């Protein structure tokens, strides 16, 4: 039935009939579709024909992928740097365009018909789809050592097939090049491009223009990072080679200077979040949020939680959201002292060496490794080593301390209770100093417990229901609203132009575009700027527009035109 509804140009060509952009009849008004004429039915290929056409198409795909794969290996063996690959692709593309012309115009029987046929485009698109799926199942462009760990003995074989970098492999490029060749051939086949055919031609040439833009952009384009502090300038950017882990420095034709940097926060909104313990797995507890209570709007109200428990904010005291300097306080044997990560202190008879600070400490069960998940002080943790006497003394304590869990340490004392002698870590600032409240927990009508909570980490939780629930008082939005860098372009000591950029609002100068990339909550004078040059961008955009307009024409505009013509 579909065959009678719409006849695709490719099919006609394959069937050897005269070409005419018949288009998509199924999209025309819902009048009963025309039936195939007996002649057309006679011309329709047999099942055997289309099967063999698909087999031929798949062979072509295989050749294209193999050619790409072989070329990549040959080039690498010859010592050609992968940065040359886009140039190779562009040259190959030019050659293939000529091939498409010759195939369609000079040799339609043997090559042209297959090149513009449905079996070919369907086969090549299916294989590209499968390759893309593979690229989401296999981690791409990860450190070679991590790839080896993940795939063991198969890693070498997979690497030979470039499965660690599918999207930049030449075998996939080979398939994409075959697709582009087919698209060019389809457009050539439509020549001369009379007005009614424009949508069809645009829809099929659009992707070719996008691909050209992408490849061209890789030849002369670049993306790097510039790390700046307020008042400093830089005339080079840093790129990162994923394979070797090396940093490359690339000179810019001018310097960029960071004149000012500021972070805009969301208006502080405070909430009492209630989390429910949902299970433990390998010492790792999982919680899910149940309720969020507004301490201002719901103050004095009994807010039901679950299982008969309810919470009430009794007294709420507003306080300034003091975005202060981050402070780390460590209490050792009754003495509290401010410390800085990476430094050592002598407190009485104890030698305290402070290691790393992770504002958002996480522990990965699978790899048994600790890491820092973000720059926000969500789970501040400090690495501390305490020795008796001096630097060479016996180790009294070594491990991580957690500001949110004063009784907990990751050094063996995991019974959850505080022991004498275990140091206590208090974390201030980096986030909030803010307001305080008293929170009461009820079971039915009976008041079970109450506690004063502040948003200072370590003093902001209230557990109830035998530890099944925990109420946490904290600021709602942990992410910055936006961050702004005022940049100047400097040449020969002269500031040529200045502009403020922020996320989603970049600035361009001299062929480069500057993007606000990141910031460091522990160093508010720092700003990370991405610097991008992409000369292929206009082609990519033009191709996208061409393709979209083309599709709209095929689906809608053309049929409207046809309907109008029919009406007059």
């Amino acid at each position: 039935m579909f065959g009678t509804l719409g006849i695709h140009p490719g099919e006609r060509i394959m069937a050897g009939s005269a070409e005419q952009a018949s288009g998509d009849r199924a999209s025309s008004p819902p009048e009963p579709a025309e039936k195939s004429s007996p002649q057309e039915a006679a011309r329709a290929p047999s099942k055997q024909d289309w099967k063999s056409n698909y087999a031929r198409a798949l062979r072509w795909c295989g050749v294209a992928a193999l050619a790409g794969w072989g070329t990549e290996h040959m080039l690498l063996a010859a010592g050609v740097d992968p940065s040359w690959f886009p140039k190779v692709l562009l040259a190959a593309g030019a050659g293939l365009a000529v091939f498409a012309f010759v195939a369609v115009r000079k040799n339609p029987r043997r090559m042209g018909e297959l090149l513009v046929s449905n079996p070919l485009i369907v086969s090549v698109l299916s294989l590209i789809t499968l390759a893309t799926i593979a690229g989401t199942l296999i981690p791409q462009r990860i450190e070679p050592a991590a790839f080896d760990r993940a795939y063991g003995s198969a890693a070498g074989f997979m690497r030979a097939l470039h499965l660690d970098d599918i999207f930049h492999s030449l075998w996939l490029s080979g398939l994409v090049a075959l697709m582009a060749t087919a698209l060019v051939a389809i457009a050539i086949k439509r020549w001369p491009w009379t007005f009614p055919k424009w949508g069809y031609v645009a829809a099929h040439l659009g992707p070719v223009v996008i691909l050209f833009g992408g490849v061209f952009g890789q030849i002369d384009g670049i993306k790097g990072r510039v790390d700046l502090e307020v008042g400093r300038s830089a005339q080079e950017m840093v790129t990162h080679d994923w394979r070797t882990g090396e940093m490359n420095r690339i000179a810019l034709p001018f310097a960029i200077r960071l004149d000012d940097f500021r972070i805009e926060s969301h208006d502080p909104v405070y909430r009492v979040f209630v989390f429910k313990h949902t299970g433990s797995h390998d010492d790792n507890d999982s919680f899910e949020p149940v309720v969020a209570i507004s301490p201002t709007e719901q103050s004095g109200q009994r807010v039901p939680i679950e299982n008969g428990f309810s919470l009430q904010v009794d007294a709420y005291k507003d306080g300034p959201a003091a975005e202060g300097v981050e402070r780390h306080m460590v209490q050792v044997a009754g003495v509290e002292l401010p410390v800085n990560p990476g430094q050592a202190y002598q407190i009485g008879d104890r030698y305290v060496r402070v290691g790393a600070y992770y504002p958002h400490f996480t522990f990965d069960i699978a790899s048994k490794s600790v890491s820092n998940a973000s720059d926000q002080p969500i789970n501040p943790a400090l690495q501390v080593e305490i020795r008796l006497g001096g630097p060479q003394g016996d180790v009294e304590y070594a491990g991580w301390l957690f500001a949110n869990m004063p009784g907990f340490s990751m050094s063996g004392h995991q019974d959850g209770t505080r022991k004498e002698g275990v140091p206590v870590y208090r974390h201030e600032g980096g986030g909030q100093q803010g307001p305080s409240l008293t929170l009461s927990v009820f079971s039915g009508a009976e008041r079970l417990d109450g506690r004063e909570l502040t948003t200072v980490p370590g003093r902001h939780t209230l557990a109830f229901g035998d530890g099944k629930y925990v109420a946490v008082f904290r600021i709602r939005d942990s992410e910055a609203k936006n961050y702004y860098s005022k940049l100047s372009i400097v040449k020969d000591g002269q500031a040529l132009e200045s502009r403020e950029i922020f996320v989603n609002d970049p600035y361009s100068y001299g062929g480069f575009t500057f993007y606000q990339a990141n910031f460091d909550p522990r160093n508010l004078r720092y700003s990370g700027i991405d610097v991008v040059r992409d000369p292929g961008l206009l082609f990519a955009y033009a191709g996208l527009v061409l393709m979209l307009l083309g599709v709209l024409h095929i689906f809608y505009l053309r049929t409207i035109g046809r309907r109008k013509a029919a009406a007059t």
Partner: protein
Amino acid sequence: MMTLTRLGMPFAVSFGVVAATTGLYLANVWIKRKSVDKAASLLFLATLGVLTWVIAERYIAAGRPPFKTLFESLVLFGWSVAIVYVAVERFYRLALLGALTSVFVLGIMTYAVLKRDVDIISLPAALQSGWFVPHVVVYFVGYAALFLGAALAVIYLIRPQATVTFTNLRGTKVVPYAHLMHTVVKFGFVLISVGLVIGALWAKSAWGDYWVWDPKENWSLITWLMYIIYLHVRTSPGWKEKHSAWLLIGGFAAVIFTYLGMNMLPTADQSAHVYQ
């Protein structure tokens, strides 16, 4: 029940309306009466109305477009399915389609209850862009149309002899089943194409690259390619409507995976697109 009340009045009401709509459409499959048919249609219109209310209320409460979290996106998805279905039903009648669609919307709403937000959070910097609303809305309306394509495919596989009537100013007539399937899929394809392009433009202005092989980007490409394959094979000789039906079901499965499945991927932590 407690969960529903926590979600606020508009959501609770719309959940009820969606449930009633589903009940009526299911009844309509067996009780073939004009009045039931008409009431069901009106109730679907009411579903669209109450879901618009949920979104509007959330928009005001949040002070930003309510499309950030999984819960918010589910409500938008339900709304999108409703608006596309109401538009389709204006012209085409097929009793089973309404039943399947209302069950789907009810499913989305139930999932939204399970994935409810305990609080409304503010937009992070990357989402504060003029591209945010068009990107998300265009995609979800596109997904909704592709859902209808898949639903029609399911109906076709169960009841190949089902008929569709088309009504416009010139009158009513029976149209080939595949005509409706293709019409909605074409519409959905155009929208996911526009969504893809908007996403590329937005990524360029936010991150400096229009394409970074992010898993979500890859899966939206996979989905898009699957529908392009459909558009090309459906007219191939030897290809049957049955095959198209399976391809459309597969295509919509890819849509759902693109939407909800990203955190199942080993490459998910490289993505900027995963719902928490």
